[in-house]
């Protein structure tokens, strides 16, 4: 522990009291609960910032190569507990606060989530930041300091309602504003040709200016030795500009312009239904990308003279295509602001940037109309068109005469009624590495999504299976299980999750299984209380907790589980009882404009209401939709789950990371062969996971041949017919006026594009196996323990190591070496040259 920030309970307590008076201006006893949280957070922050400065000094002293992780989303969740745990001060803080009569767990649980993301992509980014700091990688996140995070969800009459999430309206100690490092971001305007330069000539004039003000959120690595930062930008109008208008007396105009500028960082993913919304989204993407690129180049030039060396000192990872404009922006900065020629700038750009693909859904691949880009970013469009022109020449030379291939690979798609810029193509052409996020996904990227690019540059494509930080998703959210693991294995697994393999023999130890089951039961009791308070459904902790918690989307198939629940209910009405009582728990948010997803939430709540009211069923089954799924709720649901539903249509989920978190906490997976489920099966063993349903190949063949006929299934399988026919009447809609007949029609007449009916019979049969196994707690626990033991591969530490070795070419800390103190040199593993 650094002597400047002592971590004993007394010092922590004194620091908290000091901040109560010095920062908040009150005596401790007079503080509100929110102010007490603030005082503790400020005391923790001062311990972090000293380490952050020391870390930065270390990186500069060693001229370390840095990683910039550009992401539109960072789903960070709560900070206090995670920071204290990573600093190793959690227990000390608990003791120090106990003297003040405060329960630190309760206090930490009152912190608002930083919900700067929609789901998996944003949470992955947060896990990577944690892993980079824990592995002593100089890794920095770059994103947007949204004033409003992902909406807060409530359920009203079964329907989702959205409320704004002003997560930092009351201030947060976790953001350090760096007003002096603000950057100017130009946009709009036009290209004015003054002289006779070539296609890249002309002058960008008439632009408006946004100011990007950085805010650093410290990211504490495990052990507290390395503290990196997540740099989030707020959009501001230029202060002087406003003052100038103000001085002329047009206060309202000043305010209007200020608000218009600040809209850019106001809300996470504004609705993109109209042109104005789309433009705002594009400006958001450009805004944070431009801020990041300018900051990266400026930081590099602080210690280096020659931009040619940038790729040796900086790696920029693009998390999906949202920051793909980095290709054009880095080119612009290098050429226009630093005077480099095209070839030198292009070499630097492509050796610095790398791109992670996250989706196989064609509709999710971003395209921007060239007309919009011309209006918002005329200079960037010029550069993109020139990149495309040169790239087309390269394709033409490589595949002479293959015009169809050239058209397919073009960055600017001119085949439709208006030219569109394909951001994935821009990212691929402008990067030296393109990776998918699970083995299957990476194969499908190569074979189905962009096979032409893979044919041209096979060496550019690679896989980096996602991972999750076990510090938050096991040690933090399931401390009792973590303590049990410490007892069994020692604490080294906290540094190296693969050491959990040592747990395998304990699966056959009855007393260990007893402990394991006891902890699971306690977690389930805790969740049952939350469910009763928030969803108003009483659930029995002894029942099987069958959980599907994730963003609501048709391809993730909450509908499949819901129809399965309807089947189980109808079985009960027919007098067939299941092997064990079951609580089917759903959680997740639907995009506000996604009609079908919102309907699914209503449908689930309608099923829950019917079952809750039916005395024939409610002793055997309960259904609950737990509102407002977010990181902190996930931290309660995941440790309590017995069964983890990972049932997306095969070939559609890139990876998933919820699947990893559940299995790591001892839930058995009921899953399709999709995303990382396949690798989870390979790790935990086929006998310790419940796999069902069509494979990705079978789905693809059906699609190709048009051989899937859901109506035939309906006619041939009595169980399906019974479930769907139950939607005809008012069984689930009585009183509400909402009917779900449309679901039946969509499945039978709409082609069932997500193969729900195709997989429902297999889901039903597999659930019978699940129930029979759960009836034998020790047999169940044995498999659950083996799941925990074999999930070491899915640590984000492993993923980050692979990125560091294969893409970023930066050294990582050697976990085999003993953990050093703050002042010792680190033992690093160099990447292969």
């Amino acid at each position, binding site marked *: 522990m650094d002597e400047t920030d002592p971590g004993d309970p007394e010092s922590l307590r004194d620091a908290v009291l000091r901040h109560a008076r010095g920062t908040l201006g009150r005596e401790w006893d007079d503080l509100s609960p929110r102010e007490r949280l603030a005082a503790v957070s400020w005391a923790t922050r001062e311990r972090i910032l000293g380490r952050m400065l020391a870390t930065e000094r270390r990186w500069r002293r060693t001229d370390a190569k840095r990683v910039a992780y550009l992401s539109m989303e960072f789903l960070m969740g709560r900070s206090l507990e995670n920071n204290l745990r990573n600093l190793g001060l959690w227990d000390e803080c608990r003791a120090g606060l106990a003297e003040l009569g405060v329960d630190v767990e309760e206090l930490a649980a009152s912190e608002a989530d930083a919900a700067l993301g929609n789901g998996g992509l944003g949470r992955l980014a947060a896990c990577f930041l944690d892993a980079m700091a824990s592995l002593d990688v100089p890794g920095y996140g770059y994103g947007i300091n949204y004033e409003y995070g992902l909406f807060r969800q409530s359920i009203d009459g079964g329907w989702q309602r959205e409320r704004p999430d002003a997560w930092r309206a009351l201030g947060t100690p976790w953001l350090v504003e760096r007003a002096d490092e603000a950057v100017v971001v130009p946009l709009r305007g036009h290209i004015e040709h003054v002289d006779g330069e070539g296609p890249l000539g002309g002058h960008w004039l008439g632009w408006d200016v946004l100011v990007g003000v950085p805010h650093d959120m410290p990211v504490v690595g495990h052990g507290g030795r390395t503290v990196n930062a997540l740099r989030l930008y707020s959009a501001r109008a230029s202060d002087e500009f406003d003052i100038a208008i103000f001085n*002329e007396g047009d206060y309202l105009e000043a305010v209007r312009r200020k608000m218009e500028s600040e809209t850019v960082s106001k809300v996470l993913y504004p609705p993109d239904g109209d042109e104005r919304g789309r433009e705002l989204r594009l400006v958001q993407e450009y805004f944070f990308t431009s801020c990041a690129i300018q900051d990266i180049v400026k930081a590099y030039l602080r210690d280096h003279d020659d931009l040619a060396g940038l790729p040796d000192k900086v790696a920029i990872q693009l998390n999906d295509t949202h920051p793909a404009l980095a290709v054009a922006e880095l080119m612009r900065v290098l050429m226009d602001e630093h005077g480099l020629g095209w070839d030198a700038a292009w070499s630097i750009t492509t050796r610095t940037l790398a791109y992670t693909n996250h989706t196989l859904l064609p509709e999710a691949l971003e395209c921007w109309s060239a007309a919009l880009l011309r209006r918002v970013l005329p200079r960037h469009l010029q550069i993109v068109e020139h990149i495309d022109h040169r790239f087309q020449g390269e394709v033409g030379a490589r595949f002479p005469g293959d015009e169809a291939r050239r058209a397919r690979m073009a960055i600017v798609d001119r085949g439709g009624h208006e030219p569109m810029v394909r951001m994935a193509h821009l990212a691929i052409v402008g990067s030296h590495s393109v990776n998918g996020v699970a083995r299957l996904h990476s194969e499908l990227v190569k074979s189905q999504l962009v096979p032409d690019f893979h044919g041209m540059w096979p060496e550019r494509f690679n896989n980096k299976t996602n991972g999750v930080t076990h510090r938050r998703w096991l040690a933090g959210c399931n401390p009792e299980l973590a303590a049990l693991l410490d007892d069994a294995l020692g604490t080294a697994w906290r540094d190296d999750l693969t050491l959990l393999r040592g747990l395998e023999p304990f699966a056959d130890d009855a007393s260990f299984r007893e402990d394991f089951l006891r902890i699971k039961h306690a977690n389930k009791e805790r969740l049952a209380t939350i469910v009763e308070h928030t969803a108003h459904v009483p659930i029995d902790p002894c029942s099987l907790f069958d959980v599907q918690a994730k963003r609501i989307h048709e391809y993730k198939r909450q509908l499949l589980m819901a129809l399965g629940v309807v089947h189980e209910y109808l079985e009960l009405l027919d007098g067939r009882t299941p092997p064990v009582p079951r609580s089917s728990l759903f959680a997740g948010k639907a995009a506000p404009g996604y009609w079908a997803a919102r309907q699914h939430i209503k449908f689930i709540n309608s099923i829950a209401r019917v079952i809750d009211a039916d005395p024939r069923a409610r002793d055997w089954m309960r259904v609950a939709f737990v509102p407002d799924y977010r990181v902190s709720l996930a931290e309660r649901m995941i440790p309590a789950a017995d069964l983890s539903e990972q049932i997306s249509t095969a070939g559609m989920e890139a990876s998933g990371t919820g699947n990893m978190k559940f299995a790591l906490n001892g839930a058995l997976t009921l899953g399709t062969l999709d995303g990382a489920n396949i690798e989870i099966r390979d790790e935990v063993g086929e006998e310790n996971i419940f796999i069902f349903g069509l494979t990705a190949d079978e789905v693809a063949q059906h699609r190709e041949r048009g051989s899937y006929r859901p109506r035939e299934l309906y006619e041939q399988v009595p169980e399906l017919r019974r479930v769907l026919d139950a939607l005809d009447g008012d069984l689930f809609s009585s009183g509400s006026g909402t009917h779900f007949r449309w679901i039946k029609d969509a499945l039978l007449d709409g082609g069932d594009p997500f193969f729900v009916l195709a997989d429902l019979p297999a889901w039903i049969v597999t659930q019978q196996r699940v129930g029979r196994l759960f009836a034998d707690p020790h047999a169940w626990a044995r498999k659950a323990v083996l799941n925990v033991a074999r999930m070491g591969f899915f640590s984000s530490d492993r993923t980050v190591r692979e990125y560091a070795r294969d893409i970023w070419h930066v050294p990582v800390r050697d976990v085999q070496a003993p953990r050093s103190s703050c002042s010792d040199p680190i033992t690093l593993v160099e990447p292969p040259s």
Partner: protein
Amino acid sequence: MHIDVQPRDHVLVLKPYEPRIDSHVAVEFRHALGDHAASSRRLLLDLSEVEFIDSSGLGAIVAAHRRAHEHGGLVICAPSEVVLRLFRLARLDRIMQIAKDVDEALSALST
């Protein structure tokens, strides 16, 4: 806005005393520069008192540059770091001479 005008040899040295040249003063700035650019002298625009210049201000300079081109051109001098970056942003450094101070600019105009 106030622009100080000093004839130096065959050069007119124009020095705007305006910390911020933006849309509020751009029209006036454009007219003032235009009038001088139409004279038969070379122009030296001393930006040492300017802290920020937006694209409308740059547009006025581009227009003056075009007109002054017939009479030997326009040279910019003493831009702040921020102002220089904005010239680069618009790629105007490619078509205009930018000197670090008045002496260097006068020397450039005399060659």
